[in-house]
């Protein structure tokens, strides 16, 4: 099954990449963009036997640095109906 993990910087953590993207959008004359935050999307293809707790552990141990990042796990609707 395909699991999607969104890794984003915590609120209050400066995001230089997001700022650069914001600046680039403005220089392309797009207006009305108030802020940009850039993150990562990590897609895992895992066996159905892999539990949600196991995926949490993967995030805590490697995929996100919880000093500066938050993560959200998106499981396929059909399997669990859970989207955190």
């Amino acid at each position, binding site marked *: 099954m395909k699991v999607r993990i969104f890794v984003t910087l915590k609120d209050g*953590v*400066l995001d*230089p*990449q997001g700022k*650069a993207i914001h600046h680039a959008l403005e220089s392309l004359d797009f207006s009305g963009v108030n802020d940009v935050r850039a993150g990562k999307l990590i897609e895992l293809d895992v066996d159905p036997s892999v539990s949600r707790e196991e995926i949490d552990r993967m995030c805590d*141990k*490697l*995929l996100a*640095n919880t*000093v*500066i990042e938050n993560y959200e796990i998106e499981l396929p609707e059909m399997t669990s109906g859970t989207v955190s």
Partner: protein
Amino acid sequence: MRSAVIVFPGSNCDRDMAVALETVTGQKPHMVWHGDSELPSGLDVIAIPGGFSYGDYLRSGAMASRSNIIKPVMDAAQRGVRILGVCNGFQILTEMGLLPGALMRNSNIHFVCKDAELDVVNTDTIFTSGYLENTPILTPVAHHDGNFFADTYTLDRLENEDRVVFRYRSEINGSSRNIAGIINEAGNVLGMMPHPERAIDKKHGGTDGLPLFESLLG
């Protein structure tokens, strides 16, 4: 004095570090590959060098800090072995959890490569006892992810416990409170973004890194 340098795929300051250690100790350090699961016995110093381990994939230092050799390095840290992490080595130490905070992309996004003036904020550590108080030093910096971040509580704690060891004299990468290097609570693990191993010979343009190795290796 027995020392080791940990080598990861993508390390590029491992040889500079080895030369610095050998210059001061007169003995060649052990070069230890990241895939090994044990360290040579009787080490006094372990250096984690600069570079771009694993191409900085995922986050700088993230993959390296999960490699085989890390468990024995953690055990050595617990036993009080002196551990010096420079640049990517500092990033790896924070990813290992041996030092607090994180090294993020430089606030102006640019790779910074120049000599930086540092204050040696604490000369009362096993790494810095050879430096004079109130005497700035000049060391090369070369990094993209040197922007030290920690929450206010952690920053206050680091300062109150005299664990900020080096500070940039002027802002270069957005680091909280201009922090360039910190030490752990026990005082045996130092992480710093500037490169003391690139300032140990007059031909380098300066020798301000030498006292660090002399202090460390005593």
